[in-house]
């Protein structure tokens, strides 16, 4: 078993995530690396705000369960070998990696598809929240609402 779902408050090294999913019969790994943006658009005003840093909070046991469910679902849906997901929690400086998803597969097409599906679903279902901290305040970001996240 090379699959894993983890939460960490330490910086994430992309190489160490991507390399852990590599099995000998595989040909390619696709990795999605998300990180804290410096500038975000305020949906209500349309203006651009500068973020000083971010804080991620997770409902940790449920977040891990949801990440594991996503891995299982992806492996049922795509021709992939292994999946690794690591999400960071706590305070993140601008530009630091918040999430890494690596998918290894014999044929790269499936790895691209599965990786894109996984990040979309993770943003919809995994109970983690992001707070943006500005010079003059802070804001808990709300995701897209869906009646049935899972």
């Amino acid at each position: 078993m090379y699959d894993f779902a983890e939460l960490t408050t330490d910086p994430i090294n992309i190489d160490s995530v991507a390399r852990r999913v590599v099995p000998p019969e595989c040909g390619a790994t696709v990795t999605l690396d998300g990180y804290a943006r410096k500038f975000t658009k305020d949906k209500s005003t349309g203006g651009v705000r500068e973020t000083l840093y971010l804080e991620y909070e997770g409902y940790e046991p449920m977040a891990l369960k949801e990440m594991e469910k996503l891995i299982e679902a992806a492996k049922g849906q795509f021709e992939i070998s292994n999946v690794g997901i690591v999400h960071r929690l706590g305070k993140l400086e601008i530009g630091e990696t918040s999430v890494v998803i690596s998918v290894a597969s014999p044929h790269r097409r499936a790895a691209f598809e599965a990786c894109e599906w996984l990040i979309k679903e993770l943003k919809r279902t995994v109970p983690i929240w992001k707070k943006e901290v500005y010079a003059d305040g802070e804001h808990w970001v709300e995701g897209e609402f869906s009646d049935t996240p899972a």
Partner: protein
Amino acid sequence: MIVRVLFFGATASLAGVRSLDISLPDESTAETVLGQIKNKFTKLGSQRLLYSLNQTYATGDEIVRDGDEIAIFTAVSGG
């Protein structure tokens, strides 16, 4: 029976607490818990809320049992 209620992110900030235990009649549903919480923490009333029962998303009609854990939160924003 006693159910533990957890808040995260925006709901923790609006409720002013991160967790509390509430007392309920037997055979209460998850939706009943949510209603009680909204009555108790009126700032949550204007939010579109999601909730989970024992770390699985709840739809509302689940029967809660003594010792269960319910989390109430806004749409997730990880990634």
